[in-house]
């Protein structure tokens, strides 16, 4: 059974704090993604990685950075959290040898920045 886990389900941080969101997948997938979900805006891609130490900006990378030191782990970093980064953060992974283009998602982290 495929599994993507995220380090926290709920997180409350103060403005200006550095925030780390961790994601781990056990499917040996090459691709990993970070999205945020906001009402009326759907899922928007922040960053993705197609290999260890490789990263590519998505549609809304400003204010975020990422790290992928191991194949199974992809971290999202908010260098200085702001209130407009309050959102649901979703991690996903996919395989380049897939039969379909399906991405597998973790349960999400609800981040509140006060």
């Amino acid at each position, binding site marked *: 059974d495929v599994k993507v886990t995220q380090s926290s389900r709920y997180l409350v941080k103060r403005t200006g704090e550095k925030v780390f969101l961790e994601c781990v997948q056990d499917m040996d997938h090459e691709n990993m993604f970070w999205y945020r979900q906001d009402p009326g805006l*759907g899922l928007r891609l922040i960053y993705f990685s197609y290999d260890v130490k490789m990263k590519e900006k998505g549609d809304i990378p400003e204010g975020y950075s990422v790290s992928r030191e191991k194949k199974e782990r992809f971290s999202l970093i908010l260098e200085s959290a702001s209130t407009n980064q309050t959102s649901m953060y979703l991690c996903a992974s996919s395989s380049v040898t897939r039969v379909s*283009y*399906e991405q597998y*998602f973790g349960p*999400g982290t609800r981040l509140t920045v006060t």
Partner: protein
Amino acid sequence: DQQVKQNSPSLSVQEGRISILNCDYTNSMFDYFLWYKKYPAEGPTFLISISSIKDKNEDGRFTVFLNKSAKHLSLHIVPSQPGDSAVYFCAASLSYNTDKLIFGTGTRLQVFP
């Protein structure tokens, strides 16, 4: 610029009836489309997909229709069940960049008894 649009933010359907969720896209280079379902406080889960070489794909109660000339796809759920109440996202993949998915804004489906 929203390349994948779900113009109905919500839909309410009676149990047993058909639910039709719609999705429009603007980029003719999309060649693969997926539907995801998302419950509150959970990650999206894959539901059904369709390649651009087809116009219909069916899986149990779920059928996806693709109209390439209209750049429109729809998800039909028959019969609708209360457990189908969730947010549904359509997503599209570009032929030249198949690793990324472009998601729509979502439609919240409520199935009432």
